[in-house]
Every structure is written in structure tokens, then in C-alpha cells.
């Protein structure tokens, strides 16, 4: 900044122009409120509006309130006129109702602002604050009273009274918590439930369960699912609409050329190059629904965990820590794909009691 604060004789009443971006000089009005204008008002800090301003404010506010009136009437009329029952009429009704309601409310807001700013006085009133704390004598009085109360009640002097009361309250306090127990099933059920899916159950007539296409429920003939790069979303036969079953058992079915499959994939479970992986992401359980044919990448759209489908669905990117489990499948005598057993490890997100299921399977000589 240059050194230029020299006093100069300014012509009387000359107001220096304001440079953009700097605070305004003393003589201009400011955004922070004018100095109190000396007026004939009675109350300090209350500067009434001039009658002309107030009258102008009254007119504008009244105009706004009339708009509110129109908006309110339009709202009621829209309710009667616009019937709903399909997407287009619901949209039209929505715009008419919402538009008229918005008009009514915003006009009222504007009118009230004009009312405060142009009709009511300008306020710059001052009120004192007091510290929040009470004064020493009050505190002393309360302390004394408290002590008297303790004495009078006998709560300290009579331990039997106190102890039995506290003792009695404990189970009563626990009662509501106990009541919540039946929100969930027996504990012994749930880690086990998380380990099994309906793929492990045979059908009613004792046959292995077929893989069916999600949506149509059609069983899948291995010979028909024959173009490499093909992908299907698959659900268990008989459980097409059971959401609890689907949350663990949904599959993504892929067809490979034999030479594309790598060591991570269990080839015994890949009849004719068809591989079934759990579709439930091992991160937090979203369906890993996206597939990129050229790279064989399965991608979960929620948090972008990426799995290499040609190599046992091992994780190549993202927060998932484990591969998608592969389901043992085979072709039955009629040529349809069936599950020969359940997943060897629990599908879906990790949980405390899960443990390193993959390592256990490998120790037992199996394939995770």
C-alpha cells in the first residue's frame, strides 16, 4: 500500500467515490446499519419509517397478500380440476398443486418481508445481558436447601431405605431390555444360517436343485448357453421369489472358452466352461451385477469391488477382501444345469463368526 494518507482540504460536502471491493467511506451509507438518526421517536433505537415509505410498503405487501389469496384459490381449484390415475395426470396435478402452493407461500413471505422492512420502524434497540450464573447467595441457599432436604428425607442416614430402593430399581430398569429379546431368533441359529444357502438342499423329489434364469424362471440347458462371454443372472429353482433365499443364493453365470479359465477357478465345477459365482458381493452384499466381457471383470456398482471372473473371481480392485464364492455345478441327465452342493464357504459380506472359511476348506483338501 502506498504512503498516501495525507490530509487534504476537501471541498465541503464532497463525497469521495467508492472503490469497488473496499469498505465504504464514512460519509456514505453502510450495509451495517446507519447511525441512529436523531428523530422525534419516543423509544431509543426505534426509527419510524416515513409515511411515504410506509404507504408504499403497505401497497406492495397488500399486492403480495392478494397473490397469496390467488395461489390458495388456485391450489384448491387444482385439487378439484386435476384428477390423478396415471403418470401424466399425476405429473400435471403435481405441478399445478405445487406451483400454486409455492406461489401462495412465497408471495406471503415477500409480503411479510416488505411489511417488516418498509412499514415497521428500523430497530437498533439495546438490551443488557447478564451472566448466566446465579449469584453467590442464591447458590449458597440452594446448597443449604439441598443439604436440608437430604437430612429431612433420611436418604443418607437410613441406609436400608436407600439400598433396598436402588436394589429394587435394577431389575425394573432391565425389564424393557429383556422385552426386546424376541426381536430376533435364537442365537444358535444365526451364524449357522449365514453359512448355508438353499443350493445345499435337494428338491422335494430328491434331485439336485436346478439353476433357473432370474425373471423368467426357465431352467438352463448347458448346450444352449454356449456363446463364450455370455452372462446370466441365476436364482435357485423353487425360490424365485423368496427374498431371504435370494439374498444369499443369487448367482452370476458365465460361459468361457476352456483356455480362458485360470487356476483360481475350480474346473471340476465348470462343466463345458460354464462357471457360477455368487452374485452377492463379499464387501457389503450388493449384487455384483456388472460384467465386462473382454476383461472378464465382474464389477459391483455399489463400491466398485472388481473380481476376475476367469480366475476364481479373485479381487483385483476395490474394498472387497475375498473372492466371490464359486458354486459347484454340473449338468443333469436332461442336460440342465444343477447345483451339486452348497457353496463351500459362506457367500456375502463378512461377519464376526465367519472366520477364515477359505483356509479351512483348503486345509481339508477342498476348493474354496
Amino acid at each position, binding site marked *: 500500500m502506498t504512503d498516501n494518507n495525507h490530509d487534504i482540504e476537501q471541498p465541503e460536502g464532497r463525497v469521495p467515490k467508492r472503490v469497488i471491493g473496499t469498505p465504504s467511506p464514512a460519509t456514505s451509507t453502510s450495509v451495517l446499519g446507519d447511525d441512529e438518526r436523531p428523530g422525534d421517536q419516543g423509544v431509543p433505537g426505534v426509527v419510524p419509517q416515513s409515511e411515504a415509505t410506509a404507504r408504499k410498503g403497505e401497497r406492495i405487501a397488500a399486492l403480495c397478500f392478494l397473490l397469496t389469496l390467488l395461489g390458495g384459490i388456485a391450489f384448491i381449484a387444482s385439487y378439484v380440476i386435476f384428477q390423478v*390415475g396415471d403418470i401424466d395426470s399425476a405429473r400435471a396435478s403435481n405441478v399445478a398443486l405445487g406451483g400454486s402452493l409455492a406461489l401462495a407461500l412465497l408471495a406471503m413471505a415477500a409480503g411479510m418481508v416488505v411489511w417488516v422492512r418498509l412499514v415497521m420502524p428500523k430497530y437498533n434497540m439495546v438490551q443488557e445481558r447478564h451472566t448466566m450464573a446465579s449469584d453467590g447467595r442464591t447458590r449458597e441457599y440452594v446448597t443449604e436447601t439441598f443439604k436440608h432436604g437430604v437430612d429431612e428425607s433420611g436418604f443418607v442416614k437410613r441406609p436400608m431405605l436407600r439400598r433396598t430402593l436402588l436394589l429394587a430399581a435394577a431389575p425394573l430398569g432391565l425389564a424393557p431390555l429383556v422385552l426386546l429379546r424376541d426381536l430376533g431368533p435364537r442365537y444358535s441359529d444365526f451364524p449357522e444360517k449365514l453359512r448355508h444357502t438353499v443350493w445345499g438342499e435337494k428338491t422335494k423329489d430328491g434331485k439336485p436343485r436346478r439353476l433357473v434364469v432370474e425373471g423368467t424362471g426357465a431352467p438352463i440347458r448347458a448346450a444352449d448357453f454356449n456363446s463364450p462371454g455370455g452372462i446370466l443372472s441365476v436364482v435357485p429353482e423353487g425360490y424365485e421369489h423368496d427374498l431371504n433365499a435370494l439374498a444369499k443364493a443369487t448367482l452370476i453365470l458365465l460361459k468361457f472358452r476352456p483356455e480362458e479359465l485360470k487356476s483360481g477357478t475350480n474346473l471340476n465345477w465348470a462343466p463345458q466352461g460354464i462357471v457360477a459365482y455368487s452374485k452377492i458381493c463379499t464387501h457389503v452384499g450388493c449384487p455384483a451385477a456388472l460384467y465386462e466381457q473382454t476383461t472378464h471383470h465382474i464389477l459391483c456398482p455399489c463400491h466398485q469391488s472388481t473380481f476376475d471372473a476367469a480366475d476364481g473371481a479373485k479381487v483385483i480392485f476395490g474394498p472387497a477382501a475375498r473372492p466371490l464364492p464359486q458354486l459347484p455345478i454340473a449338468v443333469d441327465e436332461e442336460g440342465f444345469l444343477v447345483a451339486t452342493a452348497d457353496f463351500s464357504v459362506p457367500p456375502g459380506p463378512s461377519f464376526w463368526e465367519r472366520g*477364515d472359511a477359505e483356509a479351512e476348506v483348503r486345509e481339508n483338501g477342498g476348493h474354496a
Partner: protein
Amino acid sequence: MSITTVPKPIAGTSSFLDDRLGAGNFLKRNLRKIFPDHWSFLLGEIALYSFIVLLLTGTFLTFFFKPSMGEVPYEGSYEPLKGIMMSEAYASSLHISFDVRGGLLMRQMHHWAALLFVGGMMVHALRVFFTGAYRKPRELNWLIGVLLLTLALFEGLTGYSLPDDLLSGAGLRITEGVAISLPLVGTWITFFLFGGEYPGEDVISRFYSLHILLIPGILLALITAHMILMWVQKHTQMPGKGRTNENVVGAPFYPAFMVKAGAYFMFTFGVIALLGAFAQINPIWLFGPYTPADISAGSQPDFYMGFLEGSLRLMPPWEINIAGFTLPMSVLIPALVPMGIIMTGLALYPFIEQWVTGDRSEHHIADRPRNNPHRTSIGMAAVTFYGVLWLLGANDELASFFHISLNATTYVGRVMVFLGPAIAYYVTYRVCLGLQRSDAAVIGHGVESGVIKRLPNGEYIEVHVPPNPAIEAHVRGKAPVPMLPGADGDGGGERDGVPPKQLRGPLGRLRVKMSRAYGGEKIPLDDGHGHGEEHAAIGSGEDRSLTH
């Protein structure tokens, strides 16, 4: 025209109430209660009025919504879904949207109001933080605020899940995946929440009672407490002419503030109606009924959950198995740590600041953010931390919009989540000091007037004039950030060579060090007023900013 007597109906009612409640004493104290004015004081009101809109629209929705997961075939008027099996919750949400007049409007307004509610709370919290309005005696109200924000997130989460469409189900599935990852209690919590395995048949009705009864009840109670405390403690005010720590300057509650507040409620309500009418939100009919087998790409949570989504996406894979038990760190860390840092940090900040500054006095003048540069920098670092996570929550959208590699966004995010806050801290600190210097210049040299003058020696100068008294008072209304007694000396706090006992240990010495860095006046205002030879003061004065 002024009235000379109070109209009879009002006089009658007031005497009736005063005779029975003694309302006169209360009104005497409070009718003319002064409320200070500043645009930033309106931010919390957005949240308050959005909450009222939420209660109104939400009540309407409960008249038609059926919180049941029982499967029914859809028989409403939306053609593409006719005959499809879906939960009653989803069917009734479609019914509200297409077969109830005003239903779609109420649904959309409810959703928009929810976004505005949480957004309003966030900007309000930032305003309170950056102006130091949480300081004594307002720490309790600050804690209530932090609690309100946390509860609002849960309220949003439970409400988001109710329509039971494919999008809301995806959110629920992620919630389940996070809950079940918790060590020891994870399976318990999920099996109790869902009444068995996911998704079960109970969660919608349970979320419903949480969403419409329990959480809003607590919110309402806490908001009431928040308002009462604000009322009793009186609002803080910005520094300015005639404003001191012992007074409050502004407009009286009756009639001006009342009408202003009413206007602002109408405005908030009106904007929400405008959004509900013209800005489509959550078109559940496009998503279809929920099934755990499907998802649509580009699924995004509401904005206030975005930071959790981002932190889940950011985390590298990491899972620990010990003694047959599993710790899925790639879920636990992102789900708990950022939320923990932000909420705990918010809750503890007033007390940490008190510990560092040793300041136990009452504050009713709000700080301008520049005048406590370390606080402002900490706040901006936290905002950046949150912002990086939030952006990463939409990294798939960013990647496809800007045609960059999705994986690259994640890698950059992993670095920026640490680097970003550090940069923000440094930049904010410098900006604060720069602003303080410009304040000092205004006080010390005055304001550029635009008048050029030629001196006798031929030099041209621009004439500076004293600033507007109101602005000067605003700028001068700053006090040095308090420091521990003993920390302000140049010798390092040891006035007589011996620091107080509690400051001698390693923690005490750290405290003194922090206090010295955090507190004090970085750029003192130059007090020689406007006309004279003191211009060299800026720069050579006590600019201690570089030493910290």
C-alpha cells in the same frame, strides 16, 4: 392510525390466561426480547422450518403408507408395474404417487425438506463453529446440536428405506452389510434388526416406528431444548458499533422478529413446495420393487450419506482373521472412523479449545472467522476431509462424466483424503492472516477514496479517508485469542522461570505449546488513526504470524 385500547377479544383472552398462568410476567420480559441480525443467523432457521414441513408432509404420508413387507400383486394405475409382485410398502408408495391427489407433491416435498433439513443443520453448525458461537455459555446447546445432526442422519436413513424400491433396498443392504461386520455384536444386531435373516419381513415396520415416532419424538424434544436455551442465553451478535459482550443490539421479538421469522418460514416452505412441484426427486416407480438379486448402476444415496459411501469406496481390501473370528476392516474402518472423527471432533471441540486456551469466560460476540485462524483452519481441514469423502461417494458418476478412469479417482481419493485437509489447513491459515492484514490496513491507513492528489514535489497519491464508523467498529471488534496464563511470554511461558505445576509434565508442556500456537494476536490492528506518519507500521509491527 394508532390504537388507544387493546381490542376486546385480545384483552379478554389475555386476562383469562394471565389470571390462570401469570402469563403477563413472562410476556413483560419477553415481548421486546432483542434479536440481533446477521444473514448467517438464518441458516439454522432453514433446518427448523424444514423440520416443521417434514412433520406436516410426513403426517399426510402416514395416512396412506402401509409399512408392510407382505407381498401383493400391484393393481394400481401405473401401467408398467401392473401385476408385478411387490411389498405392500412399495405398492402403497406407488399409490401415494399416482392415485392420491397431492400425494406425489407431499412425497417429493417430504424428500426435499429432508435434504434441506440436514443441509440446513450442516451449514448452521459450520456457522456456529467458525464464529466460535459454541463457546461458554453455549457448549450444551452445541452438544444438543451435534446430537440433532447425528439423529437426523439416522432419521434420514430409516426414511430412505421405507418405500422398499430397488434403490432404497440397495441402501438397506449396505446398512446390513455394515452392521453385520461389527465385531462380536454384528450378527446379533442384524438378526435383531431384521427379525432373522436379511431382508426378512420385519425391517420396514420396525424402521417405520423408528422413523415416524421414536426419532422424530427425540428430535422434537431436542429442538425444543435447543430453542429454549437459545432464547434464555440470548443469541450471539457479530461485532459492531455499540455492541459489547454485555449487551445485545437488534430488533425486538414483537413485532419485528416475529414477522421476519414467519416470513422466513413461509419462504422455506415455499421453496420446498417449488422443488416438490418442479424438481423430481426419488422417482421410485422407475426403480421397481426391491429384490436382493438386482441393482441399478449409478445407485446413489441421499447427499448426507455420501461421505460414508465415499469412505467405503475408498478403502483398500483388508480383512483380519484371528482365532476363528473375522474383522472386516475394509468395512469397519470406513463405516466408523470418518463419522467418529467428525462427530466426536464436533462434540469435543469447545472443551478442547477451552483446555488449550484456558479461557473460561463467557462469549456473546461472535468471532469473525479470520480472527481465530487456527480454529478456522481446523474447520476447513475437516470440511475438506468430509468433502473428499463425499466426492468419492460419487466417483462412478465423476469418472463417467469427466471420462477419467474410475480406478484413478479412487487412487487420487486415497491420497487426497490425507493431503487435502493438510493443504486446506495451510491455505486457510494464510488466507485468514491475509484478511487480518487487510483489516489492519483499513484501520491503519483508511479506505481508498478514489481521489488522486498531486503533491508539491510532483508525486501522485490516492487520498485515504477514515472508514465508516460502523465498519470500523465491526473490524475493531476483535480480541486476541486467549492463551494459558504464562504461555504468552516470549521466554516460553515461564515468567519467573517456573511454570505452574500442572504445566510441567509432558502433557502440560504440550498444552503450553499448543496454547502459544493457537492463541494470541497474529496481526494486531494498527491503532494510530488514519492521519499521520505511522504507515510503516504495517509490516514492521508485531506481525507474529510468521513465528507460528
